[in-house]
């Protein structure tokens, strides 16, 4: 059934699993892959009139297949409100478009949140060495744009480099106003322990640097997300397992969510995303890492295509020092729950009342 309805898939299928680059980034082999492939077949079986129309135009307009599928995408509703069948159709449509566009079989998974799972994240700020492997792994896994022009290169994780700073004896009398007897304040310091005044475009030869500490920041998956509140079309919303997601096909690009986020977690696709075919990760989730389009907002979703299949997000997997921990907050034996129970944890900008499910801790 699949080959006749999805003409682009069959020849491209062999390509998908054999590229070592993809195996490293997404690991499409193993049981997870078969599950999503089965879902995919089911989706194919549920194709209805609208997608048949799409296939029709694919055959007749094969030179411009993307345009035809994109045309159908224009008229789909908000993913959250679609019926199961509509969701399957939307995913099948995207699979066709992506497969044709990237020359390999692309899977758009639609696995829903599991009962009894509330995802949580904890980061050991004491251990982070600022290597930024998480940033790179995130980009490779999640199909971010990586073009040369400013704004075309998108990273969801920012690792802030913060000066250790300190106080100096020779400056202990440097107060202000200078030269007057009574000091209003002093200048004996260089910034120490200053949060959110760091910089993240650092390029040292070796990490960790002696005079710096590091603070990785990404989407906090807030329990009270201000970005969701301001969205005029409800394209961004909280999933039952706690992840704040975006339906890229419903986003109007108004950027209210970007203004509302206190963690600068959201990025705008200012251009048509630049994603080389060979670098594209074909294992995707509709609400996760599927390729985005111009003019929409995107952000971290804790690698939904992985975490919903019981795997760690790419950043957790790649972290060389084990600073990143991920798990089910409702399972008292999960790593995250144990950290919350035993370690000193804090949340960034707790005064914003956003209740992040991303915790910092130290040991």
């Amino acid at each position, binding site marked *: 059934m699949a080959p006749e309805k999805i003409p682009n898939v069959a020849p491209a299928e062999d390509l998908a699993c054999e590229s070592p680059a993809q195996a490293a980034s997404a690991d499409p082999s193993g049981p997870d892959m078969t599950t999503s492939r089965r879902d995919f077949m089911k989706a194919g079986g549920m194709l209805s009139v609208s997608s048949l129309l799409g296939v029709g135009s694919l055959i007749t307009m094969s030179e411009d297949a993307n345009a035809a599928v994109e045309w159908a995408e224009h008229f789909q509703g*908000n993913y959250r409100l679609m019926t199961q069948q509509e969701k399957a159709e939307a995913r099948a449509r995207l699979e066709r478009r992506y497969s044709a566009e990237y020359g390999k079989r692309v899977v758009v998974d639609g696995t829903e949140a599991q009962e009894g799972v509330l995802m949580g994240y904890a980061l050991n700020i004491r251990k982070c060495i600022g290597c930024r492997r998480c940033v790179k792994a995130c980009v490779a896994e999640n199909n971010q744009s990586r073009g040369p022009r400013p704004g075309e290169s998108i990273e969801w994780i*920012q690792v802030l480099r913060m000066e250790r700073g300190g106080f100096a004896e020779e400056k202990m009398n440097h107060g202000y106003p200078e030269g007057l007897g009574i000091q209003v304040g002093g200048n004996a310091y260089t910034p120490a322990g200053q949060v*959110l005044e760091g910089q*993240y475009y650092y390029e040292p030869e070796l990490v960790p640097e002696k005079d710096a500490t590091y603070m990785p920041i990404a989407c906090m998956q807030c329990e009270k997300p201000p970005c969701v509140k301001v969205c005029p*079309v409800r394209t961004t919303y909280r999933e039952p397992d706690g992840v704040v997601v975006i339906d890229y096909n419903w986003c*109007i690009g108004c950027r209210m969510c970007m203004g509302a986020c206190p963690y600068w977690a959201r990025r*705008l696709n200012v251009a048509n995303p630049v994603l080389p075919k060979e670098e594209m990760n074909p294992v995707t989730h509709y609400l996760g890492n599927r390729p985005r389009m*111009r*003019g929409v907002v995107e952000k971290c979703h804790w690698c939904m295509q992985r975490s919903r299949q019981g795997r760690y997000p790419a950043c957790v997997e790649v972290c060389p020092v084990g600073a990143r921990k991920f798990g089910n907050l409702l399972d008292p034996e999960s790593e995250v729950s144990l950290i919350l129970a035993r370690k000193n944890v804090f949340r960034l*900008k707790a005064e914003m009342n956003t209740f992040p499910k991303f915790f910092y801790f130290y040991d």
Partner: protein
Amino acid sequence: MNKLASFAPDYIRYVLKGSKQYYVWMGILALLSLIQLVAHYQQNTDGLIVTGMTSQIHDGLYFANLVFLVGVAAGAVTIVFPAYVHHNKAMHEVTVLGEMLAIASVVMVIIFVLLHMGRPDRLWHLIPYIGIFNFPNSVLGFDVVVLNVYLLLNIIGGFYFLYIRYSGGTINKKFYMPLIYISIVWALSIHTVTAFLISTLAARPMWFHSVMPIRFIVTAFAAGPCMIIIAFMIIRKNTKLWIQDEAINLLSLIVTWCLGIALFLTMSEVVVELYARTEHANGLYYLMFGLHGLTKLVPWFWGSLIAMVVAFVMFLNPNIRKNYKLLPIPCVLAFAGIWVEKGMGLVVPGFIPTPIGEVSEYYPSMLEILTSISVWAFGLFLVSVLWKGAIGILLGELKFGGAKPIGSAGSKKPAAYASK
């Protein structure tokens, strides 16, 4: 029914006629208006990368103009309010011009919204029933509603009045007066909600304070009338419609006090923010003095502040305020000052630094600048068309059953306009 059918053709025919000057003016505006098509095309193929906006500073010149023009639209109420609440006769005669200005301003706002959006092709997602409308959570949703209703109120109110005058009927007060009173309150609401749009974003300390809505309203009621005063002077000079001194004097008095309150609020903000000088004051500090060596907006801030203070001092002096040769100077100064203060000077520093401490600057691209000029040109084109027709009807030159020359028998009212 006959009258209704001939209203639009008569209106268009009247607007198409004019002096050579008029054709040159409209021709230039029409040409300038076309520039924006390039931006619409490029932004919807290449994306917003053709503008200077980034993920750090994602609202720019378009959003700044949008915010300012909502103010101009609301500012039109400075004509309607005295006319219908204080029964000011001079204003009463020209109320419809205020409504026409509001229509043109809201149309410009809508164009700027389309330019600002990343996906204007998905605008329908906002429309209830076919799309989703995040009610009552999204302030942007409220803003869309209040702006469109305001546009509608002014179109209905304005054109109902014009049509009645055109067809020679009498105004149905039971229909018209509620419309007027609603639109007065509505004018306040559009600017209040636009202020809430940014002042409810707790993540942006520069904007997150409760003085924003009242500051928006007083700056709107200063900038709007400034534009109207200049327009009235042009109308007095170039058309037969004589707008009374009393109307202009009242407007300049409104500007004086609104500008004064605006300056007072600016001062309050500066004192509160800079006395404690927390990290939350970084945005304002960037605007006033620069941050980490980046100072692009500093001259704009001080320039605008000086322009507003000078304008305020000039407005305070009745000898200048009532001298119509000098009056345009403070009007232009205040208008430009508020455009900077409330546009770029408010929108851009909200993003500097970003919530995680990055300091970067915003450089509008040439396309963005030209496009903004182009949208303004289109707005002026539109307001010229609307005002010309409205003035024609007020004068009685545009009337059902053929134009009657001014001052001729049977058109007493227009004659009254002309003689005063």
